[in-house]
């Protein structure tokens, strides 16, 4: 596709429910990243996928958060038993192949509101 897409763009859910957020990276990009951004704050790294390597999950805030990626394509971020503090914009980004300095291309984000 032309860019990184994310769905849904907005999600309102009740506390305690599970949510699944989707990211479609740019075709051919091997690296995929998930970030969380609370209102008025910077980006908080969550998880990083690079090709077929084991993902770097060091940024996941709790075991309620998990993410999967099929090969070099779509990724889903799942938040179980959502809490109000999970309310944020969840941003996905992808970048090109190999080591070195590559810019990240961001999707428009999913705004999650937990009521």
């Amino acid at each position: 596709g032309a860019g990184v897409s994310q769905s849904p763009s907005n999600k309102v859910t009740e506390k305690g429910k599970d949510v699944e957020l989707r990211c479609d990276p740019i075709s051919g990009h091997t690296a995929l990243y998930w970030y969380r951004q609370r209102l008025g704050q910077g980006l908080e790294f969550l998880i990083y996928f690079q090709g077929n390597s084991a993902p770097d999950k060091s940024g996941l805030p709790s075991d309620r958060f998990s993410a999967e990626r099929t090969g070099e394509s779509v990724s889903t971020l799942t938040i179980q038993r959502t809490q109000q503090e999970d309310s944020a914009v969840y941003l996905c980004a992808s970048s090109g192949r190999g080591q070195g300095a590559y810019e990240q291309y961001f999707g428009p984000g999913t705004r999650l509101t937990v009521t």
Partner: protein
Amino acid sequence: SQQGEEDPQALSIQEGENATMNCSYKTSINNLQWYRQNSGRGLVHLILIRSNEREKHSGRLRVTLDTSKKSSSLLITASRAADTASYFCATDRLGNAGNMLTFGGGTRLMVKP
């Protein structure tokens, strides 16, 4: 904790003035990037400067990097109302096997018409 920290957190200027934002970081880096974000949604890459570069230009943007001070600055010249956005620096740590970036907290720039 955030690798990069922007300064100031917020900046308000008149159209036509220059805007300068600073970023400091803690560990050695491969490169430093600046991103722009409108309305709390996706970020857009602006410019990348490598650790062996000291200055880079792109249109009205000028970025400097001082690795001895672990700091960078982003200068936007002749600002326009459309430059109103949040600006983030991001660092790619030296020796990192992948392309992971660490973002700072951002500078919110408002350009008044």
